[in-house]
């Protein structure tokens, strides 16, 4: 069977959805709303790349939503304090990397299970944020939204940054030694160690990278509105993990591509607008998304049963 079979099936599903929209609801393709919808999905796409790395290395990170909110607020506060946009972006990235490093140390070097570690850090960041901001909406100074550019240009910048990142990550996973290390560690950490790869270091770096990408995702979200909410990352964990799983990344580690992540994200993100354009009530969205995830998991399960050696 083709190596990219799984990605292909998602691509076909997405193509069918788009095709039926083109036939039955051509309004869907009006340029401006389409670009706006796409832009709004970019932060989650960037975060999903990070989650994909974590899952490929056979770990999980459910603190992603809390990290995202924290990074957004740090960037927002930095900008409000009068620092230029560049510094605010840097602050978000550094904050993300630090939070990732905390998870990384606990998981990789103390050997604690990532689901428990990231659950604990999730609650910690959330509560710290609550005490700090008391749930206040943070208004951003001028010049932040759309990077101080026009909305159209800003949207294009956001989309290009995200897509460049996906392409870059896909390339790196295939062509860099580090990418290979992540796959090897996720497939069998002990086998990787025997081949001279340091699975602890690899795992640590993946978590740091994940934090960094969450920081970037938070920035891409921040620039889309004039204010920032201290709970803007809520629900991001489920959204990204779902996209990654639908895109064919094995939850048991070691397998998956960034192209799959991109396709999974686009497929899930289009459920809601498709409902609208087909004039169906929007509350079906979650149910359909759930069904798609279930389908993907069942397909993976059947497939791995067949290819058991």
């Amino acid at each position: 069977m083709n190596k990219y079979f799984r990605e292909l099936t998602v691509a076909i599903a997405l193509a069918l959805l788009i095709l039926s929209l083109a036939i039955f609801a051509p309004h869907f393709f009006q340029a401006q709303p389409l670009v706006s919808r796409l832009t709004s999905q970019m932060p989650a796409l960037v975060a999903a790349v990070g989650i994909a790395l974590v899952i490929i290395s056979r770990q999980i990170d459910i603190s992603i939503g809390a990290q995202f909110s924290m990074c957004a607020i740090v960037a927002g506060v930095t900008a409000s304090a009068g620092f230029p946009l560049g510094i605010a972006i840097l602050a978000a990235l550094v904050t993300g990397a630090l939070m990732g490093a905390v998870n990384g140390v606990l998981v990789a070097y103390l050997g604690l299970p990532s689901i428990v570690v990231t659950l604990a850090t999730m609650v910690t960041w959330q509560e710290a944020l609550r005490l700090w901001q008391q749930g206040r909406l943070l208004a951003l100074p001028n010049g932040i939204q759309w990077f101080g550019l026009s909305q159209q240009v800003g949207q294009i910048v956001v989309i290009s940054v995200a897509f460049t990142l996906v392409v870059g990550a896909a390339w790196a996973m295939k062509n860099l030694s580090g990418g290979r290390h992540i796959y090897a560690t996720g497939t069998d950490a002990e086998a990787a160690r025997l081949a001279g790869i340091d699975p602890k270091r690899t795992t640590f770096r993946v978590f740091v990278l994940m934090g960094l990408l969450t920081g970037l995702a938070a920035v891409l979200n921040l620039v889309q509105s004039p204010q920032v909410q201290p709970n803007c990352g809520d629900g991001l964990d489920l959204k990204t993990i779902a996209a990654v799983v639908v895109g064919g990344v094995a939850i048991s580690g070691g397998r998956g591509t960034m192209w799959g992540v991109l396709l999974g994200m686009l497929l899930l993100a289009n459920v809601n607008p498709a409902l609208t354009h087909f004039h169906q009530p929007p509350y079906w969205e979650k149910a359909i998304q759930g069904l798609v995830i279930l389908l993907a998991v069942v397909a993976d399960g059947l497939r791995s049963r067949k290819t058991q050696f």
Partner: protein
Amino acid sequence: MSNTEHSMGSQTLLQLSDIRKSFGAVRALKGVSFELNTGEVHALLGENGAGKSTLIKTITGAHHPDGGSMRVAGIDVSNLTPSKARELGIACIYQQPALFPDLTVSENIGLRLKKSGLFSRVRWTAQREHTVELLQQIGAEISPDAVVRTLSMPEQQLVEIACALGSGARIVVMDEPTASLTQKEQLLLFKVVSDLRKKGVGVIYISHRLEEIFTLADRVTVLRDGESVGTYAVDSLTESAMIKLMVGREMSSIYPPSEGALGATVLKLRGLGCAASGISGVNLEVRAGEIVGMAGLVGAGRTELARILFGIIPADSGEIILNGETLQIRSPREAIARGIAYVPEDRRRHGVILEMPIAQNMTMASHPRFFPNGWLRLNAEQQLADNFIRDLGIKAFSSDAPGGSLSGGNQQKVSVARWLATQPKFLILDEPTQGVDVGAKSEIHKIIRGLAKEGLAVLMISSDLPEVLGMSDRVAVMRNGKLVDIFEKQDADAHSVMSAALGTNRNEVAS
């Protein structure tokens, strides 16, 4: 006290005839017959891989034989399952007791003996009393309320024996029960075994310690290469005769000859030890172009020594000297950088990543060498893989196919290729031909000899005695974590190597 000929009224309890069992292409049992009487201790003897475990698993219902018949107390029992075996009164006491560590002794025994529904009540008092009774029967001084985790290994074995007794076992299998026991604990166990015999229980006793067999057993059945060589009254045999029965076979295949002079010493071990893995005082030299075979029983510490040399469990005493330089090796990464390679025993888990393409498997350990700046050169990788596939005669569709798509022998070649790609100076092979078919085996032998000819120093761990004798320039023997003997090629014969491995010759090389 032992070796009494069958006491009165002794009956055949278990009868196996012509049992056959294959795993893929490997024929583990080729028609074994075995008989156990009531009130008898019957020892099962054989080298590693002679088929003892497979036979035991057949008796306990864990394996289904491909052919032959099995009778318990005269009744034919085909289609034996573990639970059916238990009902028939067959119990097995393993080296590592399979108890629930967080439950108490009486809870464990209760769980094991009572088949109960989800909602049936636990009768605590009765259960506890029963436990006390069983423990008394075997003379074990263990509290029924002790949590199993807090018990020592022999105490846990006693609990297992109590279970076996409580279940009314008529046939008790003991698989190397004394391997982890102290002298005193052994005596206690021996007493329990002779008590069982007095009760009319048939005991199948597996041990590598010949003196135990002489002390305990009435009869011994020797297995060799999946066949039963014969059953003998223990009285009628000497130690030396037993060893001869275990190893006596002709060389079945031709090994590539060693030729050419040996080079300089590549690896030198001086008093190497590691408390954590029970290795101590290992002295060894391996020269360029030399294959040193390493023999010993399972658990003698051969793999542990390899893991020390490869930095998986670093040494805590002694020296590793590679090409004249004393090294501290603390991780596989360091070992690889120094030119040490280790083809591990567990090929399917550690040797080859089954999901990964062949080419990626081959370069996996040499990224720093091939891709020093972290960029993979996929074309170069492909080229390298194709070369290895050609040079080692690997049968594969393409270098893109996953490792799991290959046969065992070809997987092993990929594993070897991975380590050759690191350009090692010293290569450790751990059971390089285990579970590999005959053709691939001789190809792998040729590859190994070819590598030595090119000047590699090779340490080959193998439980396959003919392989060790046929391939090695010298044979080192390990026992109980020590390197006890080294034979030159001309002095290495099956009998002396096996004697050294079993510890029956007393003139050990002082190391």
